[in-house]
């Protein structure tokens, strides 16, 4: 079994006085693709934002490569190698594709690797190279999603968090994106992605966690999870 890259232990997280995460524990190992599945408002984005440093847990610990990172600011989290591709994509609409990608390499560690990373992003998504001077707001949804994944890669990450990249995209486009995720993993980057679609997530990931009302209720290899009674009941209705 390979090294534990990210380890969350018994996290409690609040939005103001509302408790959004209860006793959440999970592990992501190096070079894994892990899915985090759950219905609306189950707390998936809250969990990713906690890892990214936008929210700080009031209880529990977050370890990355063996170090506690639970009090760090978001920009520091990027510096140590965790990038998040956020829900809703959050492009910089007034900048062109290349400028969006370049902003991804803003952190000190990635500045020196900019040219190398840019080549890699263009190899992964050749379309971005041909559109590099196009204004980001004029890209289609799928193209925007490629751009923000590329933007995340520009930061030289060790771990990439993806929040509902499938939102509003056609199955064909989504298939391409998942193929890209596998290639990203081949380069040694670990992936934790959030989705609502159980069937597809179990297909694309190696392990998965299931969230329900702010708690992790299930976790394990996808093969085991497919057999799991609870998942079937909740999502397949059988």
């Amino acid at each position, binding site marked *: 079994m390979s090294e534990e890259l990210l380890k969350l232990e018994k996290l409690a997280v609040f939005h103001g006085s509302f408790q959004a995460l209860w006793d959440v524990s999970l592990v992501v190992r190096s070079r894994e693709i892990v899915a985090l599945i759950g219905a609306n408002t189950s707390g998936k984005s809250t969990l990713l934002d906690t890892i990214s440093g936008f929210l700080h847990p009031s209880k529990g610990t977050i370890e990355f490569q063996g170090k506690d990172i639970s009090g760090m600011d*978001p*920009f520091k989290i990027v510096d140590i190698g965790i990038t998040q591709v*956020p829900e809703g994509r959050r492009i*910089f609409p007034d*900048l062109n594709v290349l400028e969006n990608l370049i902003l*991804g390499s*803003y952190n000190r560690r990635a500045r020196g690797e900019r040219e190398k990373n840019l080549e890699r992003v263009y190899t992964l998504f050749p379309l971005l190279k041909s559109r590099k001077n196009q204004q980001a707001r004029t890209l289609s949804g799928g193209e925007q999603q490629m751009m923000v994944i590329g933007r995340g890669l520009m*930061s030289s990450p060790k771990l990439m968090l993806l929040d509902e990249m499938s939102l509003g995209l056609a199955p064909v486009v989504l298939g391409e994106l998942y193929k890209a995720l596998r290639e990203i993993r081949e380069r040694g980057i670990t992936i934790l992605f959030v989705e609502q679609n159980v069937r597809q997530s179990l297909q694309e990931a190696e392990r998965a966690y299931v969230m329900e009302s702010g708690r992790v209720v299930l976790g394990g290899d996808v093969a085991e999870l497919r057999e799991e009674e609870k998942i079937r009941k909740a999502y397949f209705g059988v």
Partner: protein
Amino acid sequence: MIDLISTIIMGFLLGGLYALIALGLSLVFGVMRLINVAHGDIVVLGSYLGYAAMTILGMDPILSLFFGIPLMFALGLGIQKFFLNRAFKVSMEAPLIIAFGLSIILQNIYQIIWSPMSRGLTTSYALKSFNIGEIYFPLVYILDFSIALVVMIFLREFLRRSYMGRAINAASQDRKAAQLMGINTDRVFAFTFAIAMALAGVAGICFGLTFPFVPTSGMSFLIIAFGVIVLGGLGSILGTFIGGIVFGLTQTLGSYFFGVNAQLLVAYLMVLVVLSIRPQGIFGRQG
């Protein structure tokens, strides 16, 4: 006819000064969504610092900017770091209240140190005039306009090319996305406020060279700056520049046709008209 032409040229040149006064307010609002109600008083701080350099050290007001700009910049960093960044974490209203407080404190400091009397940065060149054919206008207007132009080009290039400039631009478009890029937005805010203060410092010197000022002049600067921003639209330097010129032209033409007392009224009627036709400003983006 000659009178009308010189009125138009004066309005145009004056517009550069107005744009310079508005620049800092526009930048701070664009990046931090804060209406810095102390902006006008900070411009006056620039004027008084120039006045102090002139009367105490015998320094030329424009040359005093070599010290004035770093000083204003440092003050801006301090104010943002110790007051505003903390206030931003409390609520959206807290920084606004701090800005109000700052405005009142500054006005009172000016009263105590420099008295309510009207002051000016009177230099030998400020009184000279300049002519093209039969049209005469004050040299200092051309000086103001040139300084405004240089400052705006400089700011534009800084925002486009430097790391900090790009970070400022990113944070103004989407703060959370900027943080996801590894940008320290507290630092970006501090730099933005510091740059705005330095810009206000330059504006204060230019204004002081051209017109007299009193401790409460800040209020009228703030009102002019609002007008300019509304005309030009937020979020672009070019827009602020055009807004300043439209405001300046409207004011001088208003004075030419309707008398001196009507000049600001005409300028603000113009603001209202533009607002009703193009609510995003002449150069502002849609939506």
